[in-house]
């Protein structure tokens, strides 16, 4: 896949690929990620981060925003967010916006 083997860093601008859908499941009252033959149930923080993944915003910007909102140490947030996004990218559920210079 286009999104495979990407390495998530603070300069990445991740987004959900067409085949990964973040959706609120009305029946079960939880957010879910729909992917090929899989349904994942992300926790609240993951949902918040994923909603910021629009292919425009960089991971650094997301981290700034979350650090400010939760008044938490930026470094700790950055570590968690990068790890979480990397995990999703490794599973093919996250891709990276193409560099405009490419």
């Amino acid at each position, binding site marked *: *896949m*286009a999104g*495979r*083997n990407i390495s998530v860093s603070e300069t990445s601008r991740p987004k959900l*690929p*067409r*085949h990964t*859908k973040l*959706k609120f*499941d*009305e*029946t*079960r009252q*939880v957010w*879910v*990620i*729909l992917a*090929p*033959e*899989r*349904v*994942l*149930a*992300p*926790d609240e923080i*993951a949902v918040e981060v994923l909603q910021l993944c629009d292919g425009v915003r960089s991971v650094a910007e997301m981290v700034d925003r979350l650090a400010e909102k939760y008044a938490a140490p930026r470094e700790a947030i950055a570590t968690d967010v990068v790890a979480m996004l990397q*995990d999703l990218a*490794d*599973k*093919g559920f996250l891709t990276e916006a193409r560099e405009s210079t490419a």
Partner: protein
Amino acid sequence: MSDTLADNKTTTPDPNTAPSDGLAVLESRRSAAETYGIPLAVLLEVTHRCPLQCPYCSNPVELDRGSTELSTEEWKKVLSELAELGVLQVHFSGGEPTARKDIVELVQHATDVGLYSNLITSAVLLTKDKLSALADAGLSHVQISFQGNEPNVADRVAGLKDAHKKKLEVAKWTRELDMPLTVNAVMHRQNLHQLPDIIQMAVDLDADRLEVANVQYYGWALKNRAALMPTIEQIEETSRIVEEAQARLKGTLAIDYVVPDYYALRPKKCMGGWGRQFFNISPAGKVLPCHAAESITGLEFESVRSNHSIAWIWQNSEAFNRYRGTGWMPEPCKSCEFREVDYGGCRCQAFALTGDAGNTDPACALSPRHEEIFKQAERESAGTQNRFLYRNFAGGTLESNDHQDKLQDNPNGA
């Protein structure tokens, strides 16, 4: 046929998947084990028609004729009802789902009502335009079955000339259209020697996922067991190859592995337990706890054409409740500490091999029939009966000797 969310598969052990696994999280929200939430995903067998004739087809031996299939409007109503119930994903399967002329319309309707669509296909009927139309209609994932890694073995197993070549082409189009691709490889004695090449083929096709699924022996596969049953040495080698590839290809290709339960000591948790997290709908509209369930005679399955809603059928129908939970179990299941781990194994297999779907699955070492069945399978695996009984609407056609001599690769993979 695909394995789905609810199937008995082993995946690469990954601690990260545990907390985010949808089934685990959503199931744990239920207060009582006896409360059955609606499944997250449903398998729709929209037709039993198929140009392939694979001898291990998971469809029942008694196939639904084209004339009995649900109409376009009936399938659309089913899709709307499923979405309303809280089903999140559908698998368009068959038979060959693209044998239906309305497949694009059905996928579009699934998208319109908010369902995530997977296509489980043999690929041989697809054109690039048709695949592109399916993508435009919202199709999110394509799974293509492969019968081998090269035409000699693959076309012989499929019973269709040039099928393999066509599959490779469609796999390429799938990736060009930026849809994720799963390669499904059903494995048995006569193609297991190709497994390393099949894994490489999946990598070369830029697939996301490979399902290495050992044949499960009911229906057509049971009729062909003597020609398909692998040797225990083959199975040990297979497990070694899969484990090595899973480690080597982490992050490139996910490999799901379905073990053959004949050579296991514990039975598989078939369908995640009868009526617990899975149902499928047959071409004629029967709501089934498993795609092989109609092989169990004496069980009446309700149809979407009845006056009952799908939710009612799931919760209240006799067939779903017959083997639900643990209350139906005989010994040795009843007092077994694993009764909620495997739910007694597979009902269809218990029926096929013991004549009673309420018996312990003979795949379990605790079944009184286990030893005898294992020995028989072992004898068959060492035998020389390699001719297939091809799957078709006529009840099967035995492979001609000529055909086999001409096409057959060395089954032991010299």
